[in-house]
């Protein structure tokens, strides 16, 4: 048994020639440098785009924050910028979102589960698949045209909260479907096989094992979709939402039986992005301040929704790791 072999070692054929080592050193240095430059470039781009979001927020904040107060949130629009508020706008947005959520989430989840778990692999499925990915990319204003031609005129429903909710539901349906599919797909095959393995049938597997596990993912998708709907303007303009609404639709809750009231579905309405668009197209700077304030409320709302979605996803991921 040899000890201290290394020191006794006779000079060998081993080490690379000097020039090769020198070459390696140069290559390594060059690599380091180009990496450094690219990383710096990447960081700059990153900060530029992130900075833009911040700049946007700051600008809105500077212009609009001082305008946001209790009055602003509880007043109707007015010809005087300083008296104007967004009460009818945010109530309208809320009501429309309720309709949108009630329609899009169940439909989207069912469709997503069907496509992921039930659909046989054939041309019909492929068609539906292409179709959904295309729908996700169809410009929102086209949905507006759909609603205008179909709901407003053909079905003669008028421009109501219900129609707005419906068109936005159709708009975000692909988002909900895709995120449901992703959530369902991310459930390990082995969990599904476990469920089938104990003798569960398809519906039991879906209802008791797949849906609960996919819930956070679905929720995330639904919130992201709704946050998109909150900010949508074009389709709602197309169906002819009003610009000046100084009242609220009837409350969905009432004191007498049956305690629920659906008049609001047929009510005229306005929503926040439209209110903002309206103020934005006025020339007076005072209204621009209102627009900025509305934008700020809008952006805070969507960012909050996204934040919630991100937190859910983050917790989901941690859960999966554990």
């Amino acid at each position, binding site marked *: 048994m040899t000890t201290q072999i290394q020191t006794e070692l006779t000079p060998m054929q081993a080490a690379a020639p000097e020039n090769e080592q020198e070459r390696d050193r140069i290559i390594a240095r060059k690599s380091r440098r180009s990496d450094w430059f690219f990383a710096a470039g990447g960081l700059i781009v990153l900060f530029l785009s992130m900075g833009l979001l911040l700049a946007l927020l700051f600008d809105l904040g500077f212009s609009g924050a001082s305008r946001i107060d209790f009055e602003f949130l509880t007043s109707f629009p007015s010809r005087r910028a300083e008296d104007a508020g967004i009460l009818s706008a945010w109530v309208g947005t809320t009501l429309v979102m309720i309709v949108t959520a009630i329609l899009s989430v169940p439909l989207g989840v069912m469709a997503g589960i069907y496509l992921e778990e039930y659909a*046989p692999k054939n041309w019909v499925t492929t068609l539906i698949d292409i179709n959904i990915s295309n729908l996700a990319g169809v410009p929102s204003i086209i949905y507006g045209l759909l609603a205008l031609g179909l709901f407003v005129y053909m079905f003669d429903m008028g421009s109501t909260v219900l129609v707005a909710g419906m068109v936005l539901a159709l708009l975000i349906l692909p988002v909900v479907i895709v995120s449901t599919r992703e959530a369902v797909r991310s459930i390990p095959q082995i*969990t599904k096989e476990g469920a089938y*393995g*104990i*003798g569960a049938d398809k519906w039991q597997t879906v209802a008791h094992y797949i849906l609960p596990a996919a819930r956070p993912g679905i929720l995330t998708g639904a919130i992201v979709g709704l946050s998109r709907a909150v900010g949508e303007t074009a389709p709602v303009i197309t169906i002819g939402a009003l610009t000046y609404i100084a009242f609220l639709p009837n409350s969905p809750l009432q004191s007498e039986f049956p305690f629920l009231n659906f008049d609001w579905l047929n009510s005229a309405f306005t929503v926040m992005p439209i209110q903002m668009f309206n103020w934005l197209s006025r020339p007076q700077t005072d209204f621009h301040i209102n627009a900025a304030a509305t934008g700020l409320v809008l952006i805070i709302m969507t960012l909050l929704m996204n934040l919630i979605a991100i937190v859910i996803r983050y917790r989901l991921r941690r859960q999966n790791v554990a």
Partner: protein
Amino acid sequence: MSELALPTPPIEKHRPSLSRAPASNIDEDEKEQGLTAPPVLVHPKRELRADVRKLSFWYGDFQALHAVNLPVVNNGVTALIGASGCGKSTLLRCFNRMHDLYPGTRYDGDIMLLPEEKNIVSVKIDPIMVRLRIGMVFQKPNPFPKSIYENVASGLRVRGITQRAALDERVESSLRQAALWDEVKDRLHQSALGLSGGQQQRLCIARTLAPNPEIILFDEPTSALDPIATAKIEDLFHDLRSDYTIVIVTHNMQQAARISDYTAFMHLGRMVEFQATDDFFVNPSHLRTEQYITGRFG
């Protein structure tokens, strides 16, 4: 734990008669190497619970099983061994029609459930009925993201059993059977995902035991576990083997030797050899088998 010694036979003991025997239905490669011969099936002397007869199986165009035969003894352990990719899992998953979940798969031949002589891979049989009678434990522990209690109860719930008392009773007894009761009895309603890998696997076994299936399939149940957890699960088999009919896939020959009554060796989708475990390792009748158990390939 049984102390089955494993005297491996000497290497390079040529068996010219076998290796030269011309055999029908052989791949080209195999022919060149002169290694394939008709399968050697020693019929078990014990009562059978199931019998695989000329079972072929296809993943789309790829034939993964070629006319496989395999007797499954009643209340005993049948082990399947073979190199990776030889079709062990594929065969096992035919028993509970797991392949039906995926499109493009096709069975041919029979898996007869005995004594009623019912072919469970027949298209006429509802796969869910098959799965209600035949349970399965997977390679990686796959507890549901629910409580420990609900995991064990899940098999009963899908069978429509909802009375609390019946569930409680069966949950406890299957956890005991799976030697897990003492470790979890104080946390039955906590998430099963908080258990260690070995505990999770025993939980999955308890879950499978709960409805008392007629056959239990195990697909490399210990390969994802550490040696200590493995030992615990191997111990379990000794308790279960007299009450349950078990088919187990393992890549660990020593494990097969320790826990099984009968061992089958597969190669490239074919059944090469089936013998009582005691004879299988001492006196393999096929050159391929011998090469495999002495570690010449795989």
